[in-house]
């Protein structure tokens, strides 16, 4: 084994202490952000959705397009209704999970996080495609474990919700389940 980093955590203990603090600051920042966006009570879900509001739906849709690399000839995340599918899953999940996921979306959108990951000050939805990719890449490989966790949450949900839909199958050559009749 030639890896220089600690095989277990991927970072040294001193860094861990420091990042632990940064990590909690980020959670606090996310909380503050959330408080800014939802002054006292939560916004209403977007019409047709049960949990995500207008803004959260927009962030998620932008994340999904980037994760799924929508290119000409393949259905967009909206065509597969990734947002609606994630929302349906959230609706069946405990309230804490719903709040954490909403918080994650706001944290990801937030320009401050962009500064911390050195990927620019603009919010995610306002950023150009290349800079959106850079933001996701920074979270994917971040030394801050909270960001890696957040990346996985978004990637897995988008991947699962998109590719479970028959609409997505033609573009990847999956013929669908066999006909047993």
């Amino acid at each position, binding site marked *: 084994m030639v890896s220089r980093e600690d095989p277990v955590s991927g970072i040294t203990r001193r860094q861990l202490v420091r990042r632990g603090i940064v990590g909690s600051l980020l959670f606090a920042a996310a909380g503050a952000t959330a408080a800014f966006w939802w002054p006292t009570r939560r916004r209403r879900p977007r019409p047709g959705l049960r949990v995500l509001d207008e803004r959260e739906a927009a962030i998620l849709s932008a994340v999904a397009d980037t994760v799924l690399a929508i290119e000409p000839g393949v259905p967009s995340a909206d065509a597969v209704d990734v947002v609606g599918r994630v929302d349906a899953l959230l609706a069946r999940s405990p309230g804490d999970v719903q709040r954490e996921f909403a918080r994650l979306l706001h944290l990801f959108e937030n320009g401050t996080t962009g500064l911390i990951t050195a990927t620019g000050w603009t919010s995610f939805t306002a950023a150009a495609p290349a800079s959106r990719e850079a933001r996701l890449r920074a979270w994917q490989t971040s030394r801050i474990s909270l960001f890696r966790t957040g990346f996985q949450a978004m990637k897995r949900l988008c991947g699962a919700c998109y590719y479970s839909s028959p609409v997505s199958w033609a573009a990847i*050559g999956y013929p669908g*389940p066999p006909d047993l009749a």
Partner: protein
Amino acid sequence: MSAGAEIPNLVRGRDIGADRILDADVAIVGSGPGGSIAAYRLAAAGARVVVLEEGGYHTRPEFRMQEEWSYPTLYQDHANRATDDLSITVLQGRSVGGGTTVNWTTSLRTPPTTLDFWKRARRVEGVTAEALAPHWDEVERRLNVHTPEEGEINENNRALLDGAKRLGYGFELLPRNVSDCVLTGMCGLGCPVDAKQAMHLTYLPDAAAHGAVIFANCRVRRLTRRGRRVTEAAADVLDESRDRPAGPTLTVRARTFILSAGAINTPRLLQRSGLPDPYRIVGRRTWLHPTLASAAHFDRKIEPYFGAPQTVGSHHFAIRPGRIGFFLETPPAQPMLAGLAHAGFGPEHRRAMKELPNTAVLIALLIDGFLDEEHGGTVGERGGGRLSFRYDRGPALAEAMREAMKTMARIHLAAGAREVVTFHEPPLRLRTERDVARIDEASVAPNRCGVFTAHQMGGAPMGEDPGIAVVDSRLKHHFFDNLYVMDGSVFPTSLGVNPQISILGLSSLAASALAKAG
């Protein structure tokens, strides 16, 4: 093929309109292999048995091979269960039949080396291959366990066979519990032709034929005790469409209680009920066979989503003294599971998905729990009554992860793969043996490399020493006279093989002894 008849004496949550209190001889929590065979043994011996299952009752007409329906409906936490940091994806069944409704049919007995280790290191007594043999014989007959024919090996499994052969690694054909299998490959989504001999088609109807009553959508919240006895189990009736308590409760008073809610949930129920745990061992030492995956692109069609999964396996690297061993199998790969599991995002993820028809997939299951440095998983609670689950990683795990990934890459390259794509974040692309060495450099820190588990074990281990074991070798709780655990949570370490036959054999042994004792 079975007629797909409903289990008699099965009550769904929606049929329970008001609070109910029941009396029984035996109350069993959970209807996976552990609970189902215990229900059958005890009902056949004349006991009035009640089984409480939190999942729904789902059968063939609903199994339409759609991931978007099956995963949220038939898996724990709608298939979103994971460690707290999301670094290990936990696939675990949750319906009448438990994991057997969705599992991949591999049917292997516990390796003798594992049984010997338990005896030597964990003071397990009487759980021997000889004692288990008659139970295994009967289980294998009932579930029609048999070795697949040559012609049933799909291209995905063929790649493992070819690669292992070329490299001189041992491999074997893996027995399966199926009758008249038509090789759809959709085992993980609920068998669409009732070929898989899951519990809802075998031991549960057998138990019901002897009078056992099975309640679906009933989640046991807690056990109540008096002195050294458990007196009742209180369950919430769930509204299946919202997966929330519907209002009514179901209370079962019984002479004997058997917890078969599976690893993670059985220890959690013990904790939630506040049962004594002076040595703080409940929910610790949870083992997962932490599972690494590797994908390989070929120049020919593989169609890893069709054909029987896991017909070929290799235990060549199972025993690595002083290190964590691993075994190799070949999973099914339908688009949703692939989309969730593939590393990367954007163009690299899309490219991997477009290659799916030409992709072969291998998994390496790490045999955890045998080294002193390992602590395994810990079950607990975080805010809002939510499950907390963490898994401890030491240097031995990192070493085994890397070795396992290198081995899988070598096998696929030897089998003629054009390139191997790893599950690192971001993924590595490997074309030659020289490339394989890059795995040594890549991070295996949490969430830098995909890890999965479909085999949860431990958390309420058996053994004669109450300082390290929750139940004794007959699976009775050390501190309660009428409380038993019969499921995967009693294993003191992981197994080194897929768990269902071990769980069935051991629960059968313990339930038969209990039935005899009366």
